[in-house]
């Protein structure tokens, strides 16, 4: 499994977690990550409003594919968004993103020192996420 990066966005579109898993990738600045998060939040809001079918309950943008990567988004019922950037044609990304959500529910939400909506600084989450995404390392 080649996952490039994991991003977590809070309800307001702020970036609360960001981690790269592939050292060979081009580095972008912390500010650029915030811009990606904010932009994606806006685009997601628009796509969930203007769905071509007449349904009111569109879930918004879920997958974005390009030549070099595929991005998968999963929005929880509480409005937190998990973004995963991976190699193109990486299968079962929805399973991966749900597992990351599970880890978040365990190691972030059950941690009494975490303040909701704030950046995630949880050693347990870091450790288990790394163990899941890159089991060999």
């Amino acid at each position, binding site marked *: 499994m080649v996952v490039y990066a994991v991003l977590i966005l809070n309800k307001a579109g702020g970036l609360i977690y960001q981690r790269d898993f592939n050292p060979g990738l081009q580095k972008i600045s912390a500010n650029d990550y915030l811009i990606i998060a904010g932009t994606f939040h806006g685009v997601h809001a628009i796509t969930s409003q203007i769905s071509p079918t007449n349904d009111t309950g569109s879930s918004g943008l879920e997958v974005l594919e390009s030549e070099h990567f595929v991005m998968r988004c999963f929005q929880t019922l509480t409005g937190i968004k998990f973004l995963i950037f991976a190699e193109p044609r990486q299968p079962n990304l929805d399973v991966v993103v749900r597992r990351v959500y599970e880890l978040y529910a365990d190691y972030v939400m*059950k*941690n009494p020192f975490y303040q909701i909506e704030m950046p995630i600084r949880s050693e347990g989450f870091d450790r288990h996420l790394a163990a899941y995404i890159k089991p060999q390392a």
Partner: protein
Amino acid sequence: MNRDPSPFRPTSTASTATSPTPKYANLTASTNIRYSLTRKSIYDRHLNRTKTSELSKSAFAFLFGEMVQYAQKKVYGVQDLEKKLNLHGYAVGQRFLELLLWRDGRTAKRETRILGILQFISHQMYRAIFQKQADTLEKVRENEDEYMISDNDPIVNTYISVPKEMSQLNCGAFIAGIIEAVLDGHCFPAKVTAHTAPNDMWPGRTVFLIKFEPEVLEREALRVGS
């Protein structure tokens, strides 16, 4: 005849006597005990009923997390917080020891030696609470009055990541409180503290350091002599 009703006189005696509400209606409202349909509360159950039952770890984690947050609001530092958690654990330990000995029935035994009580804690007590034994039980070489019980992955710390600015904190202080209460209950007064001691395999390894009061060692010495 009593024209001036005294304010100290219970004026509602008549009304409560005739009221159709059950006698303990007031009590239940004020103590929040839940009653089932058969009017049985938790106190009417047999104490062995929950002996082998299990509890959701998530529910416990949330409850414990809330407890830590609540304790954090009223303290001025890490030591203070650990003391608070220790006290919470102490209250659990006192009750738990009684339950444990009661469940042992006629085979229940009061430990009188240091090694005996430490083994009781790291085996029976640990198994009854966490369904596993403590990982090691050692004596501190330098100090005559200190012992260590270690747990590679304490259940209370599974989901807890302590922030860097509070790095000395270990929420295992709660378990330390339970151990302290069990020791006190057996007349082995001691101070128990929890310390983080990670190794490569177990990043969350916790050591409970038990420091006995001098009178315990004095008594132990007498027993060895006899």
